[in-house]
């Protein structure tokens, strides 16, 4: 049996590994292994809902805003269920929408340019798109600069980025005045100008395909479209094919109507099902058969105990649990959101990716690019709707209450949910299900693979020393982990040596830091 290990994968966030079995140059089986455990839920028990937002808010320094907001929503839900709270003020809802929208822009830019972009650059893959070259390409450098500007916008509300402090259960601790909101607006506008006009997409697509560059149509847009064109040319539509099952919690609430800009629901058997919050919660279970947690740690997240570690568990291979919806794996992320929202701006997925609802490596990138434009166009509206004269913090956030709550949220990487039971103001039980668990968790007890484990099966591995296609697929999910790939093949024990792209040069080594 050939065993090739690529650990860590790098250029994704966190610790993760994947083991591949390969026969006749094709992946026949994959195991996705999360390689870090901290005990977030265990540590959260015994604390206050306010502190849960702080503690779980720092679960991730890349997705630094979403856990804080999701935990706050769970706390608010619990307080509301206890009839102790009426809900956050409209200004808080709008500011959270705008902030998370800005976060989408930041995260998608980081992902497209810094994490997956290099895989399609001239320097790394010989695609001819040298603007994408790490640290040297003008496109890459422009994205680095833009990510800083957009982070500065977030710091206006949060005090600092990453790990802002002003978002709390009950609303917002900060009271941004008109000039602060204008400062945010102008920073967003600046980045928006870099990105370019949405309606220019068809023209830019033509330009990129013809090898011309018109900065008037947006440098950012040109470079993002370049990534998509390069990926299409490299055959990304033919790899990483998932089961075409999607799930989204929906996001961006209208404070007046509670309507969501991206709707909540699932897509399966070829059609969209819009679901209520209760229907979503009812459908979710977690399985720990192949996780380093005791077998009784799984079940419904509204009832399961905080995961109890069992590091020596024989059959296990991941610190992640296996979440399922009605027993099935579900893909989450920008592609899931746009499929469920029935949006395919400029028919890019139809024309480049084999169909708007097709799960593949290219469509994940296309959807991320499409969503960047869609959200950019909304953020300024949400900012405009904030009225600094109205309150940002509710008057009735209760210090102590008894209740159970669920926060459903939909950050950039996909569906996120937090579950808390509160007794007299103290948390008795806590659960978190992250988007990365949905996409790249382990198998479930029935032996059914996660989305990633399924998506790489059938992919060709031409060069066992450098399974570039597999790496591109893993990165297309924008997983929040650092990753390793173990490759097994029935032929022989095999030690891989992967040639670095540009060994040893500082220029090369910062390629993904945008």
């Amino acid at each position, binding site marked *: 049996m050939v*065993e090739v*290990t*690529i*650990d*860590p994968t*790098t*250029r994704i966030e966190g*610790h993760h590994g994947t083991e591949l079995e390969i026969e006749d140059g094709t992946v026949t089986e994959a195991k996705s292994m999360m390689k*870090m*455990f*901290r*005990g977030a839920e*265990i*540590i959260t*028990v015994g*604390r*206050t809902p306010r*502190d849960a937002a*702080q*503690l779980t808010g*720092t679960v*991730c*320094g*890349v997705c*630094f805003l979403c856990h804080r907001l999701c935990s706050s929503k769970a706390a608010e839900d619990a307080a509301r269920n206890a009839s102790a709270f009426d809900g956050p003020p409209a200004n808080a809802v709008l500011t959270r929408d705008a902030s998370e929208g800005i976060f989408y822009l930041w995260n998608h830019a980081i992902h497209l340019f*810094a994490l997956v972009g290099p895989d399609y650059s001239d320097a790394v893959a010989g695609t001819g798109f040298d603007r994408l070259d*790490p640290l040297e390409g003008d496109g890459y450098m422009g994205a*680095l600069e833009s990510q*800083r500007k957009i*982070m500065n916008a*977030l*710091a206006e509300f949060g*005090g*600092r*980025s*990453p*790990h*802002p*402090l*002003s978002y709390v259960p009950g*609303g917002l*601790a*900060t009271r941004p005045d008109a000039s602060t909101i204008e400062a945010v607006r102008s920073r967003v506008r600046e980045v928006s100008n870099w990105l370019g006009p949405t309606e220019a997409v068809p023209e830019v697509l033509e330009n990129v395909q013809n090898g011309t560059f018109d900065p008037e149509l947006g440098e950012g847009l040109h470079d993002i479209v370049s990534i998509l064109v390069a990926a299409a040319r490299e055959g990304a539509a033919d790899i990483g094919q998932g089961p075409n099952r999607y799930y989204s919690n929906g996001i961006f609430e209208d404070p007046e109507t509670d309507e969501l800009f991206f709707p909540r629901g699932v897509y399966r058997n070829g059609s969209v099902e819009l679901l209520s919050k209760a229907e979503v919660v009812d459908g979710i279970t977690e399985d720990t058969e192949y996780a380093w947690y005791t077998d009784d740690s799984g079940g419904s997240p509204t009832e399961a105990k*905080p995961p*109890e*570690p069992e*590091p020596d568990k024989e059959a296990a291979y991941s*610190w992640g649990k296996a979440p399922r919806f009605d027993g099935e794996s579900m893909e989450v992320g920008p592609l899931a959101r746009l499929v469920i929202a029935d949006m395919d701006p400029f028919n890019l997925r139809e024309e480049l990716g084999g169909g708007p609802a097709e799960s593949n490596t290219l469509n994940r990138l296309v959807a991320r690019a499409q969503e960047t434009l869609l959200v950019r166009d909304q953020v300024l509206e949400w900012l405009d709707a904030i009225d600094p004269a109205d309150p940002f913090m509710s008057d009735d*956030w209760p210090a102590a209450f008894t209740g159970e709550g669920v926060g459903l949220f939909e950050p950039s990487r996909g569906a996120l949910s937090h579950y808390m039971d509160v007794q007299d103001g103290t948390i008795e039980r806590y659960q978190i299900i992250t988007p990365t668990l949905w996409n790249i968790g382990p198998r479930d007890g029935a032996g059914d693979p996660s989305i990633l484990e399924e998506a790489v099966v059938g992919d060709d591995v031409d060069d066992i020393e450098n399974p570039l296609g597999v790496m591109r697929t893993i990165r297309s999910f924008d997983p929040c982990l650092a990753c390793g*790939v173990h490759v097994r093949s029935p032929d022989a024990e095999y030690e891989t040596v*992967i040639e*670095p792209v*540009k060994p*040893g*040069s*500082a220029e090369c080594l*910062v390629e*993904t*830091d*945008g």
Partner: protein
Amino acid sequence: MTAAETRTEQRRTDRDPGRGPTRRNFLQLAAGATAGTVITRYASDIAHALERTTAGDMEVVWLQGQSCSGCTISVLQGQYPTLEETLREFRLDVTFHPTIMPEQGDAAIDAMSAAPDVLIVEGSVPTEIPSAATVGRTADGGSKSVYDWVQELAPESEYVIGLGNCASFGGWPAAENKERLYDLGSNVTGAKGLQFEQQDQPGVLGPDFTSGVGLPVINLGGCPPHPDYLLLTIATVLNGHVPELDEYNRPKPFYEPLVHDNCPLRGYFDRGEFAEKPGGEGCLIKQGCAGPYTHCDDQSRLWNDGTSVCLNVGAPCIGCMEPGFWDRFQPFDAEVERQSFAGPITPEQAGWIGLAGAGIGIGAHVARKLTGYGSFENDEDSIGSGESAETDGKERSE
């Protein structure tokens, strides 16, 4: 001696801090000036200085233990200089960083310097469950723990930097298992900092550890730390200066100023006006502000290109720069009680105490806080109580 060892030995000699060129200590500079001037003067100075002192590429290894990657993202926001400028101008060769490097798998591990000039660790190191953070493989094909990586690399490194509260003091993963779930003890995975576990030594490297240049682990607390803290510290050490460290081995210029002394809401405190809810008007001490016990210069340095800082947005300081952060200051929305003021009493404060003593409202309480005891609510109970004395013992002395 291999060529690589010779090269390392040569560098060691070149950068003996005692023999470094007499240049401005950038950390002192950072401490003494306002943010704008520090930054402006610093950027040109540093490039110039490093041209002289840097004979070649400095190899950097950046390990992540139990980390959220927030320190990496924070450093990416550095603006004067930016990270990319730092890498270029300091001629840093980051031979390993899980998030930013191009290589993957064994190539990533192979690229990693075995004797780096600077070892940066982000995230805590689990000691009870070492498999809770692994990177790459051991010789027999198993997962290699970050604990083993640290033990292996740190003694070979010229400088070791604990980046963030987790790597410095244990931080988030070391926060208390309050209900003692599953008999896991207080610290679920045995998460420690490199040389500290909260306020106490040792961490995973032991109290006597020194890196190649004879320094302990340089701790840059914070959740996350300000990007300048890392970039300026690297500039300082590579420029041949020895940063002056406090008792938790944090560079003093960054970690000496007391948040409370430079708080934008200080006027409210002085007038005895306290916010009654998050976002309310007034000093945030009753909302759990840890500013009187927390040291960093962010109030003047500001975050994200001078955009803002925690206390500007109605958020009480949570004490993230300090050892013991998480449990020492939580619950974060309740007034922090019975801890001593951790810095020297400034003339301004002393004058204020005098004023308070002359009969202004809450003066007695505040005077007690300034001298180390008491709370605003229950001053009679807390003054001189055993608990306060005990907590006090863990505090920095004045």
